[in-house]
């Protein structure tokens, strides 16, 4: 079975935007199929994420657990620790 991976677009905010250097990250052709595999990818490509407090991932504007499946059609965002108010 052949799987075609499309670029996955990830929205970046706050410290994550600064670490990545852009408000959007395009991840090309990599096998990322769950929130936890995305987190592992980000920490390996951007080791600074290991220094700061844990980020969460939002999928379609909802906080998502690590085992949540994701695909390139989802709206995905890195959510560093929030600090509104």
């Amino acid at each position: 079975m052949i799987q075609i991976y499309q670029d996955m677009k990830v929205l970046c905010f706050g410290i994550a935007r600064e670490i990545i250097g852009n408000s959007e990250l395009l991840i090309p052709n990599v096998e990322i199929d769950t929130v936890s595999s995305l987190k592992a990818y980000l920490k390996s490509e951007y080791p600074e994420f290991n220094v700061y407090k844990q980020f969460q991932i939002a999928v379609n504007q909802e906080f998502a657990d690590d085992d949540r499946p994701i695909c390139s059609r989802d709206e995905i965002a890195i959510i560093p620790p929030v600090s509104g108010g």
Partner: protein
Amino acid sequence: MVDKNLDIQLSAETLEISKNYNFVLDEKCGGIDMFVGTVRRWNKDEEITHLDFECYEPMALSELKKIANRAFSQFGLHKISVHHRTGHVGLKDIAVVIAVSAKHRKAAFEGCEFIIDELKKTVPIWKKEFLIDGSHWVNSRP
């Protein structure tokens, strides 16, 4: 996002408490509680010059709406107005205003405090503190 009893706004403009007050005022209610978060000059020993707020707007609105709906049902609030700033916010300026109205005061106090407590936990808004000698994203520091 404004409906009859709920007014949620993320705004790049200076906030004015009278707008929240006028929204929640209602002849069915005897008590209004308002929380106003303002920018203070000192955070422990660090002197602040200003803040910069960034937000993930559609999700921030949706999380705020969830919190408001929980507050309506848990505390029997009548109307809720939440305005949060984005962008550059100077000393003494307003970062957030939460106003709620209820028949009686206890529900108003509890509901208002619940909303600001939950906002600080889950709403995707980020605050960068600019100090005399540097800057950092609040809550991100290891």
